[in-house]
């Protein structure tokens, strides 16, 4: 399995988990996978919405002890 970059955005209000992901995904290489950690329930909807619109790949999400782990792959 590809090693995933973990972006720990737990407890982040500003700029918030999705903005953190957007910033880090810009610096990643095509094909890189990333796992965003978020304590904001909204991320479960926000992240796939943006990922889909931009054209990256959404790999899924799981919740563990109040933290959402949301995996994505940079496609372009």
């Amino acid at each position, binding site marked *: 399995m590809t090693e995933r970059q973990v*972006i*720990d*955005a*737990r*407890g*982040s*209000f*500003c*700029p*918030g*988990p*999705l*903005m*953190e992901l*957007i*910033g880090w995904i*810009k*610096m990643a290489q095509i094909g890189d996978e990333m796992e965003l950690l978020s304590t904001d329930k*909204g991320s479960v909807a*926000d992240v796939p*919405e*943006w990922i889909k*619109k*931009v*054209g990256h790949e959404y790999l899924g999400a799981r919740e563990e002890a109040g933290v959402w782990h949301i995996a994505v792959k940079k496609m372009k």
Partner: protein
Amino acid sequence: MKILIIGGGMGGTILANNLARRLTPELKSGKVKITMLTASEKHMYQPGLLYLAFGRVTPDELYKDQASLLEPGIALFVDPAEEFLLDENRVKSKSGKVFDYDVLVIATGSRPVPELIPGLAEHGQSFYTEETAVKMFRALQAFQGGRVVIAMGVPHKCPMAPLEITFMLHDYFKDRGIRDKVQLHYTYPIGRVHSLENVAKWAAPEFDRLGITVETLFNLKEVDGNAKVIRSEEGTESPFDLLVSIPAHRGMEVLEKNKLGAGGWIPTNRHQLNMEGRKNVFAIGDTTNIPISKAGSTAHFEAEALGENIAAMFKLGAPVRDYDGKVFCFIEAGKDRATYAMFDYLNPPDPRPPTKAVHWFKTAYNKLYWISARGLL
């Protein structure tokens, strides 16, 4: 104890002064040494650039001599760091001097990098440096009407700036009597008008009331100066007559060259502020990778927490507190009203409606900042 601080911006300066006050007898006796390396002999009050773009301050009002802001006993070198030899506890400066340390604090800030967006430097206005803010001032003066688009890259310092510049543009054109000839169009990278949910809830109806159109999920990708169109990562585009942009930022290049963090963002513990994997290297301000606002107040409160900890490390052998994520940001909502957002790692902000009183507080703070930089406020 030799304390070496890299960076003479808000965080580094407040930290140096905080430490000097906590360790005055030790500085005098030579038991503690505080050294600062910085790239410029001048200290800029960066939030003032927002006002410079509208001609409400002049460039000279934004600067003070760095040396004049520092407590006696702090050794200042206008000689930026070039090489970080962390395993040897030393830093080499551009002039070739070598500085040993017991504690290193990296506070080198962040920089706008318009080159990351093709066409942006040539065809967009911005206000994140003195040069671009003055250029924007002239462009605004010459603008007689048309479509003004606000767009940005991620990350950027001062997360409130997109809202502030938009509200101030509205009032600017209104005061010139040409607001009816100007379409203001605000774009934002995520699915609401601001990263802070409560701030977005307040700002969106304000934009509506002021006739400012909005397009969310717009991450600036390129600027076509010939067609006068901006294009997004999301595949959309928006025409403009005047583009006001906030470029994406990066940390300082020297940090990437020294492999301290991708993009110049240092992996930093969000509570103790130490560089991950290092007990005697710390980072504060914009240069950390902490998922927190890249804002002056963040640097300020981090500096206070770290100052207390470094002094305690010397006097008691251990740090004594965590940084709790505190941030306090004013939000200018036009030319004469403002509100603020205050939050920490556990408590989201809940901004009140803007008032003239808060705007005057901000105006006063624009001058009082120099007392903050001295570590007194």
